[in-house]
């Protein structure tokens, strides 16, 4: 029974990683058609991707959106985590579930809701509307990682700081914040990874300036081109690096 279960679990594990391995493999394949057997190896697709100006522009927009959206998520997520874990207020559980809704409900709902909202206010679509969208789904991600850490911090820390004569503000920056820092950074990295890849909400809120995933989406609809494998492998590399760093941070000190 034990080995049967391990066998099944390994097959499912292979199912999770095989498609990713195939993309990486094909990104080095010489042929224009994505088929086996692979007849020769090349770095041409990577060269093509790096020199593609539309992709560079997409990357720039993605980074611009993340650069503003992620800090907003970080601030909102940390504040919400402190409010929920440190104070007992009416509707606390409701607030906690409400905050999780942007990642609990399917992205399309948030996408069309925000599109309707912005259009009813005559706000033109563009990077600012994208930033609002990305900050809103990044916020619950930061919230959950930081809230888990705050829950483990003893309240006596702040009391000790107060007894020793520090103001609440000093107690926060010199006692609480250092204890939260690695969890916050882990949440920030996850929010960044999410924003960097996001497509479902992004499609509805983008104006003229495409993000990197939007650029890929546009190309995918016109068929398979081999350079997509190279872009995708590079994106994967960024996401995996960011997520691994985040996991490291959230496991430290825990």
């Amino acid at each position, binding site marked *: 029974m034990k080995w049967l279960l391990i066998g099944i*679990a390994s097959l499912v594990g292979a*199912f999770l990683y095989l*498609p990713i391995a195939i993309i990486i493999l094909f990104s080095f394949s010489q042929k224009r058609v994505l088929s*086996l057997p692979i007849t020769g190896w090349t770095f041409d697709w990577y060269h093509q991707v790096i020199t593609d100006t539309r992709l560079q522009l997409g990357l720039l927009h993605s980074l611009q959106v993340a650069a503003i959206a992620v800090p907003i998520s970080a601030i909102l997520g940390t504040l919400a985590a402190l409010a929920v874990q440190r104070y007992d207020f009416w509707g606390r559980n409701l607030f906690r579930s409400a905050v999780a809704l942007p990642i609990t409900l399917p992205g399309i709902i*948030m996408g069309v809701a*925000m599109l*309707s909202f912005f259009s009813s206010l005559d706000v033109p679509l563009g990077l600012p509307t994208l930033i609002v969208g990305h900050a809103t789904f990044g916020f619950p991600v930061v919230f959950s990682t930081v809230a888990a850490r705050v829950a483990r911090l003893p309240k006596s820390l702040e009391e000790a700081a107060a007894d020793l004569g520090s103001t609440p503000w000093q107690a926060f920056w010199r006692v609480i914040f250092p204890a939260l820092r690695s969890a916050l950074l882990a949440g920030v990295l996850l929010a960044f990874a999410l924003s960097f890849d996001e497509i479902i909400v992004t499609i509805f809120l983008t104006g003229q300036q495409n993000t990197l995933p939007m650029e890929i989406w546009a190309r995918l609809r016109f068929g398979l081109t081999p350079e997509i494998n190279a872009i995708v492998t590079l994106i994967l590399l960024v996401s995996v690096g960011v997520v691994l760093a985040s996991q490291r941070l959230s496991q430290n000190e825990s």
Partner: protein
Amino acid sequence: MSKLPTRFWLTFLPPAFWMLGLYFVPLLVLLGYAFLRHEYVAVIREFTWENFAQIFSNLGYRHTLSRTVMIATLVTVINTLLAFPVAYCIVRYGNRWRGVLTVLVVLPIWSSYLVRVFAWRIILGYNGVLNSFLVSVGILSEPTTLFLYNQFSMVITLCYVWLPFMILPLVSAFERVPGRLLEASADLGAAPGYTFWRITFPLVMPGFLAGALSVFSLTMGDYITPALVGGSGDILVGNIVASQYGVADNWPLGSALAMVVLLILFGLIAVLSRVGSLENA
């Protein structure tokens, strides 16, 4: 309850206002659109039930809705069968590799969703990996178009992209099952299978329901996977919503459909939280 200090309001109000103004108000605006009249290319600010009437009288919309619910159910069931052995093995037999294995399962959640959908086009396509493999082994004499652009490819891809969302809450649920209970059950003479059904399964139920809800809800709202790997007749309700907000340009109808999806999901959440304790895993 004692009066809350100013510090509380400083931490509570900014996130509360953001959620209210930029998430809940947009949801209300969406709800509002569902009751507006649409004529030709214009939205007329006049209350109507027409959009909902249209959804339930139009055979195409009704079929798409029931197909979406069926496919979401199927994907949830398949992922349950795939996720249980993985989560169980990671916790039970993972030993010192448990952390690493859990990270390996989570990793795909945070790595490009678009990429993971796209991979199945390379695998299942006419020139794809599966076809070239089957031809080279001699099972097929020539490549077939049967693998891609149909419900089969759509279900496989949906299972693939949402599977980690089922495994993750199950792993944390299995981790919380106290080993003492299992030992006690074995000491009292229960067979491992019996112990699993009577002790372990009820204890992991909340984690399982949380995972099942995520998979179901994510499938209900997906429109990228059907567009990239589904057939032209296999669209899901998300595709209709997306096209009403795009080329078809009938926002009231699109928002009414989105409301139906939301209603189904809220109904499910209500039922699940009544049946078992649904918790955030």
